């Protein structure tokens, strides 16, 4: 357990020593800010319109601001997650430091969990930045915080799953670009897999739709804590990390 923290701290250190972390955080802050500004602008417009027309539209901050915002954040994640995970193992393989980790008295599990946790914490840092915007919602409106918390939990779980997959893909190559591109491809496919259910209802289509991260995010975005979907994400995280462990092990048999 102690080793896990040592690895995790080292990973976070290398994120913040190189410009990667700052770049990701800045990109996220700008893009999130833009989305927030747009959605709130649209919401205000609706409010003004409802007053001038004299009809009362059902205006709800949670439904009309937070929900689309959170869905957008999960899309931003799709682009940023490959950038977070691509270096995790690929870089160690390229520079040979993987030999140091593998010959130190540390378990593979500790290395994998430490690295994954560091990536999750970096993602968490990004989400924290979004709070700068959300604070104003609470200041000038009165959104319900519970659905917001559930939505953020959903974001976390979804990112955890994609980060675990990215960690796995990073063990497969020593080239960061390849790891990043492949992770992006896989994430994107997991995203859109749900489309098939639009025209097909056969068994395979149901499986594909079930695997889609989008399907499982819907209830979280609405602010509903769905155990079924949480279980999906958690098991996907386990599966991704399990594959990582297998891959690290096979690395030794092959290399």
């Amino acid at each position: 357990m102690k080793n896990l923290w040592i690895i995790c701290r080292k990973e976070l250190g290398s994120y913040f020593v190189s410009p990667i972390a700052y770049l990701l955080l800045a990109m996220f802050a700008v893009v999130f800010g833009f989305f927030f500004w747009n959605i709130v602008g649209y919401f205000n417009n609706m409010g003004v319109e409802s007053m001038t027309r004299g009809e009362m539209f059902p205006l709800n901050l949670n439904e009309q601001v937070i929900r689309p915002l959170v869905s957008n954040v999960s899309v931003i994640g799709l682009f940023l997650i490959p950038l977070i995970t691509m270096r995790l193992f690929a870089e160690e393989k390229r520079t040979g430091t993987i030999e140091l980790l593998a010959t130190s008295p540390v378990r593979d599990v500790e290395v994998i969990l430490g690295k994954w946790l560091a990536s999750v914490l970096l993602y968490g840092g990004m989400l924290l930045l979004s709070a700068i915007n959300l604070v104003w919602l609470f200041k000038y409106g009165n959104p319900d915080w519970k659905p917001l918390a559930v939505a953020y939990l959903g974001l976390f779980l979804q990112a955890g799953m994609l980060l675990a997959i990215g960690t796995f893909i990073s063990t497969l190559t020593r080239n960061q670009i390849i790891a990043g591109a492949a992770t992006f491809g896989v994430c994107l496919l997991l995203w859109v897999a749900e489309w098939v259910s639009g025209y097909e209802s056969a068994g395979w289509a149901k499986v594909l739709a079930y695997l889609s991260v989008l399907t499982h995010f819907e209830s979280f975005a609405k602010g509903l804590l769905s155990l079924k979907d949480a279980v999906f994400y958690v098991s996907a995280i386990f599966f991704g990390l399990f594959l990582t462990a297998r891959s690290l092990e096979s690395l030794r048999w092959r290399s």
Partner: protein
Amino acid sequence: MIAVQELTKRYARNTAVDHISFSVERGQIVGFLGPNGAGKTTTMRMLTCFLPPSSGKASVAGFDVLESPLEVKRRIGYLPEMPPLYLEMRTSEYLNFVGKLKGLGGADLAQRIAFVLDRCAISDVKEKVLGKLSKGYRQRVGLAQAILHNPDVLILDEPTAGLDPKQINETRDLIKSLAGDHTIILSTHILPEVEQTCQQVIIINKGKLVATDSVHNLRDRARGAGSVLLEVAARTGTLDAVAAKSRLEQVPGVTRVLSRDAHPDRSVFEVEAHNDRAIRGDLARTVVNAGWDLNEMRTAAVSLEEIFLQLTAAEKAAGVESAESSGSLAQAQEQAS
């Protein structure tokens, strides 16, 4: 300290290490010698638990590499061929991280870091980013990393590769000075390095163990069957080399005479005998009595390189690769001298 029995590593297409057995006593420096691609790195990786053996056993300090890898890893310091440095870290940060990884902490860690900074002469780059260090410094930081947790066994893969002659000497001295506290295995394809630093040599070629012996014995062994070089010259005119050769062959105790170099007025012969020291007088008298001059008589010096080539000669038929390896040996010799 280290016991290896029938250790084998097979890959899909080839066998990198083929039934190697040897053992290393506590406190010894052992040179692991072989041309590039002989299986040195693979063997070391198996000893450090980086690679699992396909068959056979290896144990370090009594712990088997497959059964208790964590115990083995606690007791070894490993410097791979490429020092495993995180180039974005500072030297002190890096040593701090490695120390924690190896289970050190607190005052103990601070004290060990101070010790290795001093021992490996890297105090002056303590706050430098590793990526900006020269090759020599990187190698020394790599060595510092290996000895940081004061391991029983040090495994060094080509610790002097790519260094300049001054750095090579410094690194060798450093390794020698570590010998008292640690058992050291170092791999190299540079023979003088082994002659200078090691007490024992393990020679492998194409994954097979060719010889394992002390540097001293190995040299003696080659010398025991060794030979004397004679330069015989005519006082005037030309030398009858054939006659000279047959005269030498008649000296009791001589097993073989080879003509090494022939000029019209002088010839160099290599005389092999069971006991080259005892027959030197006879050889000299024979030459002088026959009316020739004895210009020179000396023991044919055997370097480890020759021993190495002798021992691996059987496999020389394989062509390209051994040509390559002797090329690198010659290069190494040049570099070292």
